[in-house]
């Protein structure tokens, strides 16, 4: 295999997958590097068609797996059916200056195999947030810069949703939604009745609810709402990079996929004053090999992207590539998922549901949207779910117990619940750095993570409890209980920042096109580029930003400018 390409992409998750698609489709010889093994759709989804009763532990983890993986096992999807897609704690150590759950998926497709598939657009309120509220730095782009790219991505991904007409959560190019249930509809109406600026809408999700030629061309089928997406879907019913972007790129003949390739660093040429490639260590043989290209796209997942750049040291950049201002690795942020609320509703005892759907409802941010109204900055979105309650009496033993289990029935009561998705404020003190002594199995310094909640997050949690308790009470829900689940930072799996975009090279690492201010042929397009976090699940924005940046780089390359 030649080791010279037009473009090298680091990381074969959903961000890397998008740049791989764009470059290879437009005729550029592209190398896509992935540190983990290949996962090919659908043959490498070993549990995808297993029935619940076919699992030895019926979905549970063993006590040893929990003991060996305190971080990975904290993730809701790290269960018997999908554990093989998660990084095991002992295989890939990192330093926790403060508790941080770094949930990772090292394989082709990355975390796009096990993600939660919620895809909400950002709005202009989100991109204008830092400038308006005086935190982080101003985003160098606005919603209008990204709107067409959102559409571009949605058309390829397939997004099920309603057109809700909300300025706080712009509509996209949607496939039809699944039906809302009677309590979801009721709560939506009640909230509308009592609040002008609060909306309970269908949670837009990356599932195919109807076919289009583009999906047929991808070889994907309609989602059958199995709700076991974390195993990988043999039908291609939800979006992951394995069933879409990567085979799409490979079909062009221009894409070379190289799994088991741990990127050590980006190579910088002092004479040419630009990056010339990457140093790769084979994850199995540990043999080092350099690869060369005109342009390097880094999308190794937020914190690994930070790690690679910090480890890319040269005479010109002794503190990491492009790090003249010393801000590389700083201003890491995430989403605050600690607060939950649940209750019961007795309003529709005559109704139940049948079938299943892979999404629930969503309440876009309503706090501090149009003006600052609380003693904390920004706000939170929330999920909303409503399910018929089923009662099974498990008291006693013998025939009595058997009969009780066989008499299981719906009670007529509905369980309702919400969880908070809070924006956290990026701060210089929330950072990652390279360990000065410890290295991993490939000789790369371990990453130390020093990230925590702050007072703004605590105030936001209290506000969520108050506001949602009020909304629940007004809707007639009873037995309302709030809960702080104690989730550690990182457990949201929405870590962002460290290589933020901005207008000024003195205060940011990337320009409006995700191009490093100080090294123009290196682009960062995964979560590391994010200047702020907003409240929305970020993957759709990562993909739109990546597609935009890749096409910018392509135009520049065609002009011979990079």
């Amino acid at each position, binding site marked *: 295999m030649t080791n010279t390409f037009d473009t090298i992409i680091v990381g074969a998750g959903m961000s890397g997958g998008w740049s791989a698609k764009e470059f290879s489709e437009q005729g550029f010889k592209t190398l896509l590097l992935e540190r983990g093994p290949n996962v090919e759709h659908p043959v490498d989804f070993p549990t995808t068609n297993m029935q619940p*009763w076919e699992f030895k532990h019926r979905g549970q983890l*063993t006590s040893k797996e929990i003991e060996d993986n305190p971080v990975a096992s904290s993730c809701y999807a790290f269960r018997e059916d999908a554990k093989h897609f998660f990084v095991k704690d002992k295989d890939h150590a990192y330093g926790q200056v403060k508790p941080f759950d770094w949930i990772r998926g090292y394989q082709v497709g990355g975390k796009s195999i096990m993600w939660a598939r919620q895809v909400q657009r950002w709005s202009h309120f989100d991109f204008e947030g830092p400038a308006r509220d005086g935190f982080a730095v101003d985003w160098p782009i606005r919603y209008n810069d990204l709107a067409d790219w959102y559409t571009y991505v949605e058309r390829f991904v397939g997004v099920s949703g309603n057109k809700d007409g909300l300025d706080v959560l712009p509509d996209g190019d949607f496939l039809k939604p699944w039906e809302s249930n009677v309590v*979801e509809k009721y709560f939506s109406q009640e909230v509308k009745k009592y609040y002008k600026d609060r909306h309970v809408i269908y949670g837009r999700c990356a599932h195919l609810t109807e076919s289009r030629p583009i999906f047929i061309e991808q070889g994907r089928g309609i989602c059958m*709402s199995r709700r076991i997406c974390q195993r990988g879907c043999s039908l291609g019913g939800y979006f992951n990079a394995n069933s879409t972007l990567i085979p799409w790129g490979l079909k062009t003949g221009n894409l070379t996929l190289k799994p088991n390739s741990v990127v050590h660093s980006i190579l910088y040429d002092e004479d040419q004053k630009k990056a010339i490639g990457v140093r790769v260590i084979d994850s199995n043989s540990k043999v080092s090999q350099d690869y060369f290209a005109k342009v390097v796209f880094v999308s190794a997942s937020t914190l690994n992207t930070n790690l690679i750049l910090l480890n890319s040291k040269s005479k010109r950049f002794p503190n990491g590539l492009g790090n003249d201002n010393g801000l590389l690795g700083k201003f890491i942020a995430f989403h605050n998922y600690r607060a939950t609320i649940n209750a019961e509703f007795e309003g529709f005892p005559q*109704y139940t549901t049948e079938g299943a759907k892979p999404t629930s409802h969503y309440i876009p941010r309503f706090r501090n949207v149009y003006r600052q109204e609380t003693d904390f900055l920004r706000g939170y979105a929330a999920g909303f779910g409503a399910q018929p309650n089923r009662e099974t009496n498990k008291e006693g*033993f013998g025939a009595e117990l058997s009969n009780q*289990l066989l008499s299981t029935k719906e009670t007529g009561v509905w369980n309702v619940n919400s969880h908070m998705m809070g924006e956290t404020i990026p701060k210089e003190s929330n950072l990652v750095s390279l360990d000065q002594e410890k290295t991993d199995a490939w000789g790369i310094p371990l990453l130390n993570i020093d990230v925590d909640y702050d007072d703004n997050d605590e105030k936001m949690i209290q506000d969520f409890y108050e506001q949602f308790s009020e909304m629940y009470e007004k809707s007639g829900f009873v037995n309302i209980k709030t809960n702080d689940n104690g989730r550690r930072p990182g457990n949201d799996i929405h870590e962002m920042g460290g290589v933020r975009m901005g207008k000024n090279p003195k205060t940011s690492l990337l320009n409006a096109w995700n191009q490093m201010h100080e090294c123009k042929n290196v682009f960062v397009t995964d979560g590391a580029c994010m200047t702020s976090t907003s409240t929305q699940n970020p993957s759709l924005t990562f993909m739109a930003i990546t597609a935009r940046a890749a096409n910018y780089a392509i135009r520049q390359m065609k002009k011979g400018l990079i």
Partner: protein
Amino acid sequence: MIRRRKALKNIGLLTGGMLSITYSCNIIPEISYINLPLIDSKQQELIAVICNLLLPIKSETFPTPESREHFVLSMVNDCLDDKERIKFLDGFKTFQIEIIKNKERSFKDMFLEDQVDFIAKYINEKKSEIGVFLNHLKHYSILHFETSENYMKSYLKFEFMPGRYEGTVLVKS
């Protein structure tokens, strides 16, 4: 018999345990559990009897890939942490001692009424050694039953590929 042997072999594969079949007058299946080395085939039979008393279900009506006792023991072996597993084993030991002390015969040979009385005496004493043991058996027996194909489909409305969601369905009276 061939079918039974094949089934036992499958159980061995499913449980990850080591299956050894002793060819004698009575074929006694014995699966070794790495964390339960002292549980022999007779004790496995005893566990089966207790589980069936705790939750009597016709396995023909609610078939499962593995027998109840082997599912329960697999879960105890793999999913209980060391502390809970020791409690389980202590409870099992005390259970057997109590039987001998009180009845001077094996549990299996006791009258059904006596078996039920004995379990009833301890099942609600959840913190006692025997209570912990019995409640682990009960918990995993229920899990085994509730995840059987027939129960999931017929009683919990489970559909593997529903392909639809209806949110306002009138409850059938």
